[in-house]
């Protein structure tokens, strides 16, 4: 890029140009030193001279910390006009956005938003509309957000707001009413909304090959808000409203609603990763923001506590359980509850059971806790880095290094965790219902890994059933139970992994599962025939259920010797598979790797089915529980903070697809060396 003036040029008396900064739409900007050494930015005006000069002259004496100060306006010997401005070092918002292609951390967004709001509010209060608000015009110097190019601002009054019809601004951030020559302050709200959208997602809502295409989209297309966390959607919808009269009219209102959405979305702002500030200039600002957010969280918590209703109490207990109880403790409690359920009311644990619990805990400590630990620090970050983090914690500093980590453990999608709060914010809304693109290779790897792990999970669960209940006294019973559980779990995991990320009709899925269940039932029946389990207590139905004489029409569901027939087996597994959303339990984006509630609901479903069907009560219920436990334990799972998705490339998609992304820092040399 060539610039008109070379270093050491002196186009204006008293100023020496040292280097060119950039070339904008309205002219070239240079970094210069006054004769005394004061650094300034000199803007040489090329185009739109009249507009620019009028705008600048109106803004010459505005003073606000969040606006780039204009010192003076001068003419050189060639009669060219120059604006002498405050030099703002530090990164521009567009550079910061460039560093975060999948969206910026929420704290950073709040920080920028707060500065933009203060600056714009000052302008709007004086009847001035910026009209050219865009990331390239917003800077951060010494922790202060500065809005530049105020020279484009237009002095407005109610009578003159539609007076000028000249089309100005940058099209990506241009409000639709500009096309009609309307320049109210809502125009800046719209631009701020676009910037907010871009900060959250890493892309602007309206893209196109040509200026005309983008403008047309501003005028007619609705922004795709589905890529945003749910709480942010109404705020952005109100800011990006096409009709300026229906749009949020005050910038403070936009900021207030955005902050509320942040608080409501439950972004954990005091976690270490959340405190990271990727821009070196913003590190000091983070603590200033933190109290606001923490205050909000506390207020919400206080409101909950003051409401003494049962629902609120239950909610607080659940919250306490999810956020405060250490995971190892949860696992031990889960195991106790499971074993307790298996015993069906028999209180007291044998030494063998206690031993098993210890083994489960040890396995957890060895594998899962390590996975968690490794995912909380950059890979290969030995003592020194860890010490930095700890030292930062001790001082309460928010100076966290950018950490980009590969997904740990058995995560189904090769996602990359970025220890950033926006990832948390976004991921809190990611569920098995989130539509996303998963590469077929990843899908295959996830499926095979899940199936391999299911072998171990079946072993663990069958052993637990064998030790905790009198259900499986013989080895052959254990083998039968284990094999059928494995088959059932695998039959549920395979379709679930095929369906993962796709949209589909739930009823259809249930029917498919039911058909698979019929097959599993048939195989289970064949297996018990093969193993000659006819005289095993395991399979003796305790009652005919709702079926008189074990007959369902012409189909016999129970044989003369009291054993379920093939039809009985098929019916039980068919209904069991229909009754639950098993794909939800196997999805990588399920709430937790293992949820006791899901397992207990499966147990309950098993009980209900065996109450209806002439199928062994104990076996049926425990089978349902065991299958649920195995599916959850073995199916790949991506932790919440590692669910890092970006909109899939390619316009015109009917459904808003998200795709796993790799944070750019992973590939950078610095990150590798970390």
């Amino acid at each position: 890029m060539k610039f008109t003036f070379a270093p050491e040029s002196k186009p204006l008396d008293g100023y020496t140009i040292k280097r060119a900064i950039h070339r904008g739409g309205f002219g070239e900007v240079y970094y210069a030193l006054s004769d005394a050494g004061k650094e300034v930015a000199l803007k040489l005006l090329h185009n739109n001279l009249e507009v620019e000069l009028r705008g600048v002259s109106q803004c010459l004496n505005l003073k606000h910390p969040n606006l780039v100060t204009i010192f003076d306006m001068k003419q050189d010997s060639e009669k060219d006009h120059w604006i002498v401005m405050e030099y703002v070092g530090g990164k521009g918002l567009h550079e910061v956005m460039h560093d975060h292609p999948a969206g910026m951390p929420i704290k950073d967004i709040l920080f920028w938003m707060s500065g933009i709001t203060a600056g714009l509010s000052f302008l709007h209060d004086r009847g001035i509309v910026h009209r050219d608000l865009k990331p390239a015009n917003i800077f951060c110097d010494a922790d202060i957000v500065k809005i530049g190019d105020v020279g484009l601002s237009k002095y407005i009054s109610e009578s003159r707001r539609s007076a000028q019809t000249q089309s100005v601004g940058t099209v990506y951030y241009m409000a639709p009413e500009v096309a009609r020559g309307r320049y109210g302050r809502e125009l800046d709200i719209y631009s701020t909304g676009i910037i907010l959208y871009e900060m959250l997602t890493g892309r602007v809502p309206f893209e196109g090959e040509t200026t005309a295409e983008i403008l047309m989209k501003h005028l007619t297309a609705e922004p795709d808000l589905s890529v945003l966390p749910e709480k942010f959607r109404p705020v952005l919808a109100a800011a990006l409203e096409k009709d300026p009269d229906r749009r949020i009219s005050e910038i403070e209102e936009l900021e207030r609603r955005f902050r509320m959405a942040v608080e409501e979305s439950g972004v954990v702002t005091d976690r270490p990763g959340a405190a990271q500030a990727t821009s070196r200039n913003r590190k000091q600002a983070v603590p200033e923001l933190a109290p606001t957010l923490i205050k909000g969280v506390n207020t919400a918590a206080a409101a909950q506590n003051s409401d003494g209703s049962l629902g609120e109490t239950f909610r607080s207990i659940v919250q306490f359980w999810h956020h405060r109880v250490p995971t190892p403790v949860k696992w031990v409690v889960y195991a106790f509850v499971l074993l307790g359920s298996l015993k069906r009311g028999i209180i007291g644990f044998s030494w063998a059971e206690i031993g098993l619990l210890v083994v489960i805990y040890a396995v957890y400590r060895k594998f899962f806790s390590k996975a968690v630990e490794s995912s909380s620090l950059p890979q290969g970050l030995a003592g020194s880095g860890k010490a930095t983090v700890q030292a930062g914690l001790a001082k309460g500093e928010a100076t966290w290094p950018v950490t980009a980590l590969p997904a740990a453990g058995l995560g189904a999608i090769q996602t990359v965790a970025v220890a950033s709060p926006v990832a948390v914010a976004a991921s809190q809304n990611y569920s098995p219902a989130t539509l996303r693109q998963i590469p077929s290779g990843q899908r295959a790897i996830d499926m095979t890994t899940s199936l391999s792990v299911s072998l171990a999970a079946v072993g663990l669960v069958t052993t637990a059933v064998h030790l905790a209940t009198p259900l499986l006294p013989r080895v052959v019973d254990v083998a039968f139970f284990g094999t059928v559980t494995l088959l059932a779990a695998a039959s549920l995991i395979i379709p679930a992994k095929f369906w993962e990320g796709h949209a589909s009709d739930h009823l259809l899925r249930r029917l498919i599962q039911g058909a698979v269940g019929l097959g599993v039932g048939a195989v289970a029946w064949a297996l018990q025939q093969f193993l000659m389990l006819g005289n095993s207590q395991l399979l003796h139905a305790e009652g005919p259920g709702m079926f008189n004489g074990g007959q369902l029409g012409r189909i016999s569901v129970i044989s003369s010797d009291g054993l379920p027939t093939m039809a009985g087996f098929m019916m039980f597994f068919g209904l069991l598979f229909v009754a639950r959303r098993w794909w939800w339990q196997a999805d990588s984006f399920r709430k937790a790797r293992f949820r006791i509630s899901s397992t207990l609901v499966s147990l309950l479903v098993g009980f209900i089915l065996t109450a209806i069907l002439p199928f062994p009560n104990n076996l049926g219920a425990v089978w349902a529980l065991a299958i649920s436990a195995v599916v959850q334990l073995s199916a790949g799972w991506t932790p919440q903070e590692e669910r890092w998705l970006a909109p899939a490339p390619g316009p015109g998609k009917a459904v808003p697809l998200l795709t796993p992304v790799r944070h750019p820092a992973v590939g950078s040399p610095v990150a590798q060396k970390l």
Partner: protein
Amino acid sequence: MSLAELSRWKHRLLRQVDLAGSGTHGLVSRDIPVAGNSSERYIIWIDGVGAWQLCVGSEFLIGAPTREDSVADICLMAHLSRRHATLQRIGEDWFIHPYHPTVVSGRTVTGAASLRTGDSICLAERVRLGFRIPSVLSGSAVIDFESHHRPAQTVDGIILMTDSVLLGPRKDHHIYCPDWPELVVIYRQDGQMRCRSKAALTVNGERVRDSAILSDGAIVSGEEFRFRIEKQSSNIPV
């Protein structure tokens, strides 16, 4: 005794006081070298990119400026001693010699400590600098400003040049110039700063064939870029 001699005596005395002070803190042993303005300093002004301070040498003193001059090579507007710490390249390795409270990546260092790329240097609890060696092709290091503290003349970073400095379009170049088509190497040969590139270069308007000497104030231009290198004198706070 002339004024110049007086000034020299004063500096020698101050240096001894600094040494004695650091000795009582137990931060450094007497055999650790104490650099003092041992490097040459330049500023590179790059159009569309930024300004970088270039320190050439193998020992670089970090400190605060005085009213009269800037003894330190990395002279920061901060509440630091005039001689707070020295960065030194020995062989292939970089070391920091602290004279006053210094923390490197969370570890308090009281004696010479090695530096690795990615280390964060914290001086006097408030001044934070990043240390990195971006390229395997060069041992020169880059100091990034992680806190607000900067030299009096605003620069985007400081390059500690031991052999060469790479300016180019990749992030593992010392100065990342995203829009440049080619790498430009600044290096030192026979006591002179030189530059070369695969791209067609002119220095002060004259075409460069292989490499060219960079004199004070030289303007280097290519098809799509331009920069100027300017020598800094030590009696102006840099």
